[in-house]
């Protein structure tokens, strides 16, 4: 099962890669929303994407909106992992098509719990 970690911070991508990797996912990384879309267009389509909000080039909300506009990507689970905690922004992301929302800082257990909630029990194999 493939997870895509989308964050402009390499440190944060490294942290999330370790967490979801230990849960059994293969992991691909992207430094912004556009890079993630490019990877997906090249065939690296994940089952789940963990998405930062505040990124250069194309932010997390723009990525979610783009993914949801593509019929062939409708089954991808989208989880925001971000410092953005304003209620209105959370509502915007969920309305745009994100399934879950995790606010930084988080623990590895919090990520695992959210993935279980999203149906990745076990989590990935």
């Amino acid at each position, binding site marked *: 099962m493939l997870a895509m970690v989308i964050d402009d911070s*390499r440190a944060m991508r490294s942290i999330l890669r370790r967490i979801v990797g230990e849960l059994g996912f293969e992991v691909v990384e992207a430094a912004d929303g556009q890079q993630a879309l490019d990877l997906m267009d090249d065939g690296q389509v994940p089952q789940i994407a963990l998405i930062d909000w505040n990124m250069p080039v194309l932010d997390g909300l723009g990525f979610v909106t783009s993914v949801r506009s593509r019929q062939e990507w409708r089954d991808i689970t989208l989880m925001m992992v971000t*410092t953005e905690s304003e209620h*209105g922004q959370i509502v915007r992301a969920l309305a745009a098509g994100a399934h879950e929302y995790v606010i930084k800082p988080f623990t590895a257990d919090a990520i695992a719990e959210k993935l279980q909630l999203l149906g990745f029990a076990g989590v990935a194999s």
Partner: protein
Amino acid sequence: MNETIMLEHRDLEDIVSQVWTSLMAQETANAAPWESVASDVVAAGVAISGCWNGWVVVETSQQGALDLASTLFDLPRDEIAPSDLADALGEVANIVGGSVKSTLTGTAELSLPSVEHGPSTIAGLSEASLQVHAAWQSHPLRISVLDDNSKSTKEQS
């Protein structure tokens, strides 16, 4: 006009403690205020713009930033590149800044982090009204929250 930030010293201490515990599984300790800014300081700042305008800045020593990057990347110190060091401290500032922003009642945006090697060029940083001094693995930490007077000074410089 700035919204009054409803953040007290204890709240900022709690934010710092939570960030270090969550990200690095390690505690910070209280420390005495810096008498002067060391020449090897590394500073990462994020700007908050909107109902409140200002900066959140995280500073530590070069060695502290190196250990922080080593911990976040889970790599030996000798494998940490200068860009990794800036990336890691910038992300910590981003998360602390996001937590500070979450205490605002109105709408605001967080900038991407900027990182400076050497004393920060953000004017008024040493006199920030809200400042936490801490230590992590014996490295000095200073986390400052300062309002837009300092921000406008930086933009003019």
